[in-house]
C-alpha cells in the first residue's frame, strides 16, 4: 500500500499552500487518492504556515500527517518543528537560504537547496517554493513530472498564465539541483 504523508512548511506568502495543492492535484490526475489540508489557525495570519498532503492508492483515512515521510522546510522554525517528527526513511528538502540547520538524523534522506537563489536566477523570487517542489520530486519519485507540470498549470490563476514557463523552469532547476546532490551523496 502506498501511503505518502507530507508536510510543507514555511512563512506565509512563500507559496507553501500552493505547492501542497499542486502535488495533491497531480496525485489525483495520476489516479491516486489525495487530500490536502492547511494550517488555518492564527499562524496563517502571520508567522509560520504549513499544509499536510496525503497521497495513497487506497481511500485516505486521516488527512492529518503527524509523522510525515516527506517534508519541505522553507525557513528555520519549520526545520526545528518538523524534522524531529519525521518518519524514519523520510525525505527532507531544506531551503538553505532561510534555514541554515543540518539534520543530524541518519535515517532521513536530506537535500539542501538554495531555493531562493534558484528562483531568482530563473527570474523571480516567488518561484522559490516551486523550485523546492522540484527538489522534492527528485527525492520522492511518486508523482510523474508530466502530472506535476499539469498541477503547476492548474494552480496558476488565469491572469498569471504568462508565468507558466518560468514556473516550470524553476521546478526543473530545483529538481536538477537535488538530483546532483543525491548523485554526489551516492558516490
Amino acid at each position, binding site marked *: 500500500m502506498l501511503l505518502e504523508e507530507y508536510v510543507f512548511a514555511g512563512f506565509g506568502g512563500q507559496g507553501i499552500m500552493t505547492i501542497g495543492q499542486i502535488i495533491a492535484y497531480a496525485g489525483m490526475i495520476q489516479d491516486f487518492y489525495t487530500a490536502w489540508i492547511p494550517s488555518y*489557525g492564527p499562524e496563517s495570519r502571520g508567522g509560520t504556515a504549513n499544509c499536510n498532503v496525503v497521497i495513497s492508492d487506497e481511500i485516505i*483515512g486521516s488527512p492529518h500527517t*503527524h509523522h510525515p515521510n516527506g517534508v519541505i522546510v522553507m525557513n528555520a522554525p519549520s526545520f526545528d518543528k518538523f524534522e524531529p517528527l519525521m518518519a524514519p526513511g523520510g525525505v527532507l528538502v531544506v531551503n538553505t537560504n532561510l534555514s541554515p540547520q543540518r539534520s543530524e538524523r541518519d535515517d532521513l534522506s536530506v537535500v539542501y537547496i538554495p531555493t531562493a537563489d534558484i528562483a531568482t536566477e530563473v527570474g523571480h523570487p516567488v518561484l522559490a517554493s516551486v523550485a523546492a517542489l522540484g527538489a522534492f520530486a527528485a527525492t520522492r519519485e511518486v508523482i510523474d513530472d508530466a502530472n506535476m507540470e499539469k498541477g503547476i498549470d492548474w494552480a496558476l490563476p488565469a491572469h498569471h498564465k504568462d508565468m507558466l514557463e518560468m514556473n516550470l523552469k524553476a521546478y526543473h532547476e530545483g529538481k536538477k539541483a537535488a538530483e546532483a546532490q543525491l548523485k554526489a551523496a551516492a558516490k
Partner: protein
Amino acid sequence: MSDERVFMKGNHAACEGAYRAGCKAYFGYPITPQNEVTEYMSAHIWEHGGTFIQSESEVAAINMIMGASATGARAMTSSSSPGISLKQEGLSYIAMMELPMVVMNVVRCGPGLGNIAPHQGDYFQTTKGGGHGDYRLITLAPNSVQEMAQFIYDAFILADKWRNPAMVLTDGTIGQMMEPVDYASMPWMDPPDKSEWQLDEFQEGRERHVLTSIWLDPVDMAVAHEKLIDKYERLKKEEVRYDEYLTEDAEVLVVAIGSPSRVTHSAIRILRQEGLKVGLFRPITVWPFPYDAIRKYADSKRVKAILVPEMNWGQMIEDVKLAVLDKKPVHFVAKHGGLTFTPEDLTEPIRAILKNPEEPNTLWHVS
C-alpha cells in the same frame, strides 16, 4: 474513479452541491472555518441565477432564509459554532413553520468564542434542540469533501420532502481540506412544486396561505405539535442512514462521525494488520440517529465492546449508550481544545479494550 473529478475544498464543494440542488439564495456572515462558503457563494451563485447577501449579522441571515424559503425558493445559510448559536431562534421558528431550508455548521471549538480549530461540541445543540421548543433538524454528518457536496445536495431534497429544516453538521477539518470530488451523483435539478403552501402573489378565489409559528390557544397548538411529532416519527422510520467499514467480523465497534471517523479509518487499518478485528460504524444521519442498527451490534455475541471517539466532552456517546442499553461496555476517547486525533490516540485504547472489554481507563459511566 471517474475522470470528472475536480480537486476542491470542502467548503467550496458544499456550494457546488447547493448549486446543483437548485439553491437560489444564500445569505450569511463570514466566520472561520467556513469563510470559504460565504466567499464562494458571493463569487459564483450569480452564475446559477441565484442571489447572495452578506447580512449584517447571523440573526439577519437566518431570518432572510426564513423569508426566501417561505416563497418556495431553495435557500441556504452557513456558519460556524458561535454564529450557529445566533441562528437558533430563527431555526426554531423555521421548524414550527415547517419551512424547508439548509444550514451548514462547520464546527469550531467552543464554548464562547473558543478558537477556530476543528471540534464537535455542537452535537447536542444540533440533535437535541438548539433553539427553544420541541423540534428536530434532519442532520447529516459528512466526513469527506465528496460528502460535503453530496450531503448539502441531499439535505435540500430531504428538507423539501419533509418540509423541515436540514442541517449539515461538519467540522473545521472537513471544511478546510481539499480532496477530489465527482459531481456525477448530483445532477442539476429544480426545486419541487411548492404552490400548495408557498407565499406568493394574491390569486382570486384561492385560499390564503398562512405560515405561522404562533397558536395562542393550547388546543390549536397541540394539533400543530402533533403534526410535527407525527412527521418526526415517520422520519425516524424512513430516513436513518449510516455507513459501515469492516464491521462484519468486528469485536470492537468504533462509532464515529466527521474527521474523527477518518482517523478511525486509519487506526483500523493499522490494527487489522495486527490481526485485530475492529470496525467502524459511521452514522450519516445523526438525527434521526441509527439506534436500531447500533443495537444489533450490542446484541451480537461477537462484539466485545464499543468505542466512541469525539472531539468534545462526550455528546454522541449518549445516543450510543441509548442504543446499546448496557448490553455491552461503551468506551470514550476525547480530544479537546481543537486538537485533532492521531491514529495512535485510537489504536492504543482499542488494543487495551480488546484485552479487557471493561478496561477502566476509557469506560464511560453515565453519572
